[in-house]
């Protein structure tokens, strides 16, 4: 079990921020917990405020530490969760396969994220249809055609309850991230000061002791 992250400066792995979005009750927290500690708690609480867990994951021989942010899905708490979108590297747009409404709301979530995370539409989104173990209200074709129509988003189906597809959903998302070739610096500067014409200010401060 390793729910910790390493700082980038240790040079061993990259910390990536992942945000899980979707309607209340679609299973965001359960997905996160299944992925991080491989457990499903029947008696879990609905989320209040913001929580995050970290987990290391390997891809192509490289280790990444995913810092997974989970917030409350109710509209009322929008002003609380949106500040946390900034600086995200990936986003899981989640709905429940047994809940049509949550599927229909996907686009609201996507737009909310793009707006507040201040990213382009080609951001590595991953659409996740959860609760695969329950009777479907949304077909795979429907979901896939939504993804195709909105800029070829990735699509996965999972069950946090019986663990189907959870790890591979995060992996697939990571793979898309790696492919889009790290669009942003993972650690932005605290403010917008540019160092004149010296180029990218965040480059070149690698600790000399990082080897």
């Amino acid at each position, binding site marked *: *079990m*390793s*729910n*910790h*992250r*390493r*700082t980038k400066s*240790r040079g061993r792995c990259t910390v990536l921020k992942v945000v899980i979005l979707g309607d*209340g*009750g679609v299973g965001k927290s359960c997905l996160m917990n299944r992925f991080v*500690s491989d*457990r499903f708690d*029947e*008696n*879990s*609480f*609905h989320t*209040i*405020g*913001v*929580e*995050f867990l*970290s987990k290391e994951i390997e891809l192509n021989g490289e280790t990444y530490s995913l*810092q997974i942010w989970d917030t*409350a899905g*109710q509209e*009322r*708490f*929008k*002003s*609380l969760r*949106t*500040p946390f979108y*900034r600086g995200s590297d990936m986003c899981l747009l989640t709905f429940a396969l047994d809940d049509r*409404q949550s599927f229909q709301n996907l686009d609201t979530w996507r737009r909310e994220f793009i707006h*507040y995370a201040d990213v382009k539409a080609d951001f590595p989104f991953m659409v996740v249809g959860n609760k695969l173990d329950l009777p479907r209200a949304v077909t795979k074709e429907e979901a896939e055609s939504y993804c195709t129509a909105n800029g070829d988003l990735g699509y996965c189906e999972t069950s946090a309850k019986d663990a189907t597809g959870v790890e591979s959903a995060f992996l697939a998302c990571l793979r898309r991230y790696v492919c889009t070739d790290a669009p942003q610096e993972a650690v932005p*500067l*605290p*403010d*917008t*000061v540019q*160092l004149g014409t*010296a180029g990218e*200010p965040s480059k*070149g*401060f*690698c*600790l*000399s*002791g990082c080897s």
Partner: protein
Amino acid sequence: MEEETLVYQQDEVHTIPTSLEELSVAGRLRIIERRHSAYIEWRCSDDESNPDNDWAVVNKSAVTFTHHNSSGSVEISTPRRHVRPISVELADLGSYKLTIEGSLVLIQRDGSTHPALQFPGKDAEYFVEVLSRYVAIKRSEKDSTLFLLRDKKTARIDDQLSALGLVSHASRGSRVRKLHGSSSSDSNRSRGSPQHTSSSQVELHSAVVPWTTAAPQRVMGFISNFRRDPYTTTLTTLSKFYDIVLSEDDWAEGFVSERGGDDLNPFASLSGLDNLEPGFQVVTLKGKLVERPRVERLPPLTQLEYSQHCDVDGGVRDPQLLKRRIFKGGIHPSLRSELWCYLLGYYDWSSSSAQREVRRNERLVEYQKLKLQWSTMTADQELRNSGFRERKSLIEKDVNRTDRSHPFYEGDDNPNVQLLHNILMSYVMFNFDLGYVQGMSDLLAPILYVTQNECAAFWCFVGYIDIVHRNFDMDQSGMKEQLLGLQHLIAVIDPEFMSYLESSESANLYFCFRWLLVRFKRELSYSDTLRLWEVLWSQEPCKNFHLLVAAAILDHERNTIMENKFEFTEILKHINDTSQRLNLEELLCSAEAIYEQLVASSDVPAAVLTLLGLPLKPSSQDGEADVSVGELASEKCVSTDEETSPLESSRIISAGPSSSRGKKENFVLYRRCDHNDDDDFLSEEDTSGDSCGGAGDNNASVVPRGDTSATDGAPRGLVGTVTSILGSAVRHIAGEDASIDLLSPISAALHNEGLFEDAIGQQYL
């Protein structure tokens, strides 16, 4: 199986129960070497009894407890709780807390905080010894139970650094005096300036960090900040420098005229801020509170005692007295179901038993009407009522996720879950506009558990929502106001911590959101939640006591947060992890002590007095001290001077009795206006109507306080030199050379100039 080397093992290391109802679980603590790294691991030893692989259930046989006392006994249940196994790579361990009683809490660099473990025989000596083979351990200067870990290599560099003698111990006093002397002759320059008030009012904040020991870290901290963000670091450093030069005058007057030979550190206001992140500064910190008193609490109110409060008809003779008593000790579980009905306004305090009987019957009829309204809604009707449908769907989702590990609500098809649903649906009909908001089910579940009666629970819930309805404002303004109120409180009772939070972009106190929304329910054990709530409902000794409880928790965590140099993300993690580990009685003592402290102090800003509903003190009553609650909710921007308005680009986070002519600034924290995100929680947007419009140049946070002309009185040479050296270093680092030697060129240059000691001594770095 990977190769492992066991280097330390200790059995019978127990978890420490956080409430009476919990058991402690024995486990095995080990230090293991694996793949060139060392790990600390703890796992409960009792594997067979725990089919759920390695997660320990801390209270599986203690689900129901019986509370006895002279006046009867009552059973009280508590939810099951799990304790995860612990595995921490040593490199990720930032610090640990170890008490003399042998309780150990591991705290990771990312803020993750593990449950407390108890060493057998209170003896952790060998564990620490083994640990110190891998890492350098240093006891915190602020908190004797906190131990900070560093990489051995870094520790060695630090030691070498101090061995180099860059910091000359002997020179400190004379340097300080020299600088002081040079500027005290200039002090008349600013005498006319209104904010430089009579020195008799000036009280310096007295916590001084031993600078000699802190200096090497400060240099290291400065250098690493510099590498990360040279621009802001430079500005910050310079701003502190300017600031000290400017505030010198204040200090000088105090020193010369009143304090005489008093060995006060003129830079005390900056002490503890040596790890200040780039971009922030404290300009003045002068308020000082009296010492916090010791507070004792009482045992819970018993039946016997309660009956003495009642008259022959069963009415309560002196509700205020009884509420005061409930505040001091809470209510014995056997009395709760009755007294909660009073506290939450279902019964009147003065009512006789007969009147209460009437009330119950009336209210039952009323409740049943509400219940009929939603339960007779046809599916067809629902289809045309999206507002209703939404509320219903949220409730259905949430009651299934509320306290389901509590025996009262556990298991499939539990009828009590249905009751939760009924009550919340009826509340939607009672108050459709507010409807259902997440968090409400958390507030209801304990009430239903205590009253064990649907109708009584409903009306008590109505009373509770009346108290906390602002938590559920559509625009969350009630929550924002509370967080701001808490900010004001912290700024008064612990300015050093507040400015630390400022510097780590955490002053918004987001991480307290869950505490406030459901009144600490998610942070406390079930029985503690019941206790805290009845204490809060007593409305004693002041309003918004829950904010004092929040302040007390933060007070408890402040050293851990600051010493670990946690920033926003780490603080959030750490605070979320303190969930279920708080000691309520201790917290209530501290919260009350803080209250007493504020009451006894003369310099409490009006904003805080208003927040707690305390009378404004005479000193703050005249003039402009009438800060209303509305104002309090917004950040204010105050210009202290007409001719020069140096504050335009900064905001006053907390303003005491505000600073007009002849008035002293109690304390004022300035924060750089960061990016304004329209919908950011607590964003400045709400207050954009005020005079802060000048915040265009956001990054120019270096705001000299007071008359800018005072800058001219500063030793120009020093400023110039520091500026140019820092400037050249910025260019150097921003250039190609990524691997500059640790101490050159900054420190070497400074050292050669003979200014390094000055810089350190005066905490510019």
